[in-house]
């Protein structure tokens, strides 16, 4: 059984939940006997600029054959302008506008599309839905296409082009039931083969150092956020809420932002920003936290929640996020906030009640052990891919041509020269 994963960016250094999930699935699947896994991706690693930083060609990484193709140039300025216009009422955008948005969102890799078209895999797996790599693959693949949408309730989801793409996919794999409900409600895709899979989690790789020492705050208690430090991930809200909280409470509580900074680093005497850190450091910082806060409303799975729970740390999440709320409700391992007041009250509660923190952490830990261990996950996943492959391609990709216009068959854009 051969699987071709298609993802906009691929590699250990890539920051992004869906891309990381794809890498983990590919690396675990290729260890199963009888499975051959290839990855088709761009030469870019960075989400914002999508610059061709990796060499074009095929290389084997952790047992997975990775083929990279250069991305075409795009105008970030035009993308921002179009995005601002369409996000007000995305469902009323024309197909042409939404196609243009997709092209500008990038990465646009003509070579990648050709590779998918010519792939000898039994099934093509694309993730996430938001990029041209997925839409183009659904349009040109000769073999069944499984999409991991990694969708959240964001304006782009309602652009008309995605309805067409979802209709032509042959199966879906979701990270949570909330994601499934969202996609099925938006696209009436319930009759398609689908699987709520989640993701597996390995053993913590921390080495037992005190998180406070790593952060340079000694024995001060701290909350931590782990992931890309980005306004869209709710980091500005968390920063402002924390600063307001500290104005009212003169204690030694600190907040650590652990992860690469996208735009502006939060600044406050009680806030530590680490930037990207090594995995053992991340685990040690996580293990030492009082509470892990994930303020993002746009999560389709949130691996970091499971990582926190696997070291027994309770979590606080955004009540508007279906995926993280589902984890908290199912596990009983975390609380949520939907305003500054509930943030303040919940933090007070968590900090002052060590027993409750432990109880939440333990419940989360049990949840992780029960549902998110790799052997179980990968067995279910393999069986699902075999099932979809056995059904064959149920939609005629030719029907997508009128939607995608001449882009997939027309003259290819000149690729951006690879950077050193």
């Amino acid at each position: 059984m051969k699987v071709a994963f298609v993802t906009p960016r691929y590699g250990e250094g890539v920051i992004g939940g869906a891309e990381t999930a794809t890498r983990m699935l590919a690396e675990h699947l290729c260890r199963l006997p009888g499975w051959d896994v290839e990855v088709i991706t761009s030469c870019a690693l960075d989400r914002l600029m999508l610059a061709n930083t990796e060499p074009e060609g095929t290389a084997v990484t952790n047992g997975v054959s990775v083929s990279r193709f250069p991305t075409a140039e795009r105008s970030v300025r035009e993308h921002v302008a179009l995005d601002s216009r369409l996000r007000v009422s995305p469902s009323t955008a024309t197909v042409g506008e939404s196609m243009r948005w997709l092209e500008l969102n990038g990465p646009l890799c003509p070579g990648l599309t050709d590779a998918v078209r010519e792939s000898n895999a039994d099934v093509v797996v694309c993730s996430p839905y938001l990029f041209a790599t997925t839409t183009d693959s659904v349009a040109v693949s000769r073999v069944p296409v499984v999409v991991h949408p990694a969708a959240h309730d964001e304006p782009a989801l309602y652009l008309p082009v995605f309805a067409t793409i979802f209709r032509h996919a042959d199966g879906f794999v979701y990270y949570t039931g909330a994601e499934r409900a969202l996609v099925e409600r938006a696209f009436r895709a319930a009759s398609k083969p689908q699987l709520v899979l989640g993701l597996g989690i390995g053993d913590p790789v921390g080495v037992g150092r005190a998180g406070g020492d790593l952060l340079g705050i000694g024995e001060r208690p701290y909350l931590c956020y782990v992931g890309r430090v980005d306004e869209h991930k709710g980091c500005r809200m968390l920063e402002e809420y924390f600063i307001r909280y500290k104005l009212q409470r003169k204690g030694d509580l600190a907040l650590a932002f652990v992860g690469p900074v996208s735009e502006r680093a939060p600044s406050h005497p009680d806030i530590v920003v680490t930037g990207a850190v090594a995995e053992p450091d991340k685990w040690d910082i996580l293990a030492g936290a009082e509470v892990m806060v994930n303020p993002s409303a746009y999560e389709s799975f949130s691996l970091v929640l499971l990582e926190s729970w696997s070291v027994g740390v309770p979590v606080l999440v955004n009540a508007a996020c279906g995926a993280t709320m589902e984890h908290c409700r199912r596990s009983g391992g975390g609380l949520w906030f939907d305003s500054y007041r509930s943030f303040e009250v919940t933090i007070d509660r968590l900090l002052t009640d060590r027993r409750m923190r432990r109880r939440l952490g333990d419940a989360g830990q049990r949840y992780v052990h029960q549902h998110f261990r790799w052997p179980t996950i990968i067995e279910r996943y393999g069986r699902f891919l075999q099932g979809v492959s056995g059904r064959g391609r149920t939609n005629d990709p030719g029907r997508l041509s009128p939607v995608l216009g001449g882009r997939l068959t027309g003259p290819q854009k000149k690729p951006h020269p690879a950077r050193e």
Partner: protein
Amino acid sequence: MFPACRAEHTLRPPRLVPELLGVRPNPFPDQGAPEPGRYSDPVPPAPPPQSSVAGGPGDRDGAEGPESSEPLEAAARTRHLDQVICEIGAEVERRRASGDLPASLESELDALFLEFSPVGLQAKSRMRQTLALVDRSAYIDLAVPVASRKVVGRSLKRLIKAGIGWYMGFVVHQIIRFGWSVSRLFHVLVDRVEDLERSVERVQDPGMPSSVVPRLDAARQWWVPEALRAMTGVGGRVLHGECGNGTFVVMLTERGIDAYGVDPDAQVGREALDSGVDLRSEPLIDHLELVEPGALAGIVLTGSVQWLPSGDRRRLVDLLSTRMSERSVLVLQSMTPEAWSTGSSPIVGDLAPGRPLHPETWIHLLQTCGFATSEVFSGGQDRRIDPVGPDHPGATSVNGAIDAVNRLLLGPEEYLVVASR
């Protein structure tokens, strides 16, 4: 967002009003003192009353008490979480009412939350909270900040403020009036929606305990050969509604039919699901709502379809007409109305929201959504009374009566309708 405290969560002694006693209230009466030296709460805690979350006074001292080694059951976890969230919600309300944050600042902080949070699927359960935000946003603050690092800047801002204050005040007054009018309209609508929800709740039948609802095991059903024959050769995806343990879905897939199943009971199909059968745990009608029009080439309906309330039945028929393809096959299995009172469990018989229909009625309903060809098969337990022997006294008249009873009241207890279009 925060669920209302329910009766089982209020088993605590009545709270004294600490303000009347000259004591500032503890923000968390159920948890006790903060851990020393970790952070200082601006509101000093009162002596802890009885906890509703933890097991007893020893659980509330913030120290590392002995944790039960037994795994928490899912229901206990849910109760614990609901209770904590409920208490947090009550504390949020108390602090809001205390006015320790200026209204404009609180509004600004809430707006920040909305800025980074989608108003989508979660909005339904947040009607009141969202409305409260509308109320707060309806006020426009005329007190423009005039602070500046430069003295000239501050003076200039004050000058502008003073100069156009009368004008802005006039405009803002009208905008606020408009905002409040709109907000009032929303309040009326929300009140009305809540009234309607309560009315609907009142007319709903009490739910049946899931233990009494029969779960399908197709391995032992008389209608399986006919249903398999009907579905053989359909050109597309087949759905088995209320598929029970998924046996019939497996039978279909073993014959090369692209089939999947749905059942509201998540547990009954767990084994099949774990072995890779495409099963979903959700109600049939909810599922069909989320299926693309024309996506299904075949549907097999079993289980509670026979006792749907009339509104749901009408919705089901509408969905069948739109979700099934032009050339599709429908199979429907049901108990006969005659067998209903004796053939089903007493609790199902009494509490089911609807009653089975005669096969002729289903054929009529299916014709309204374009199903032309229909066949009806009878089966299941045969409840007919055997005739008496010819040597029985008065055999002819007794058997005549038995025939009449069999024809009118007894006979096979189930039927299968196969319809196509």
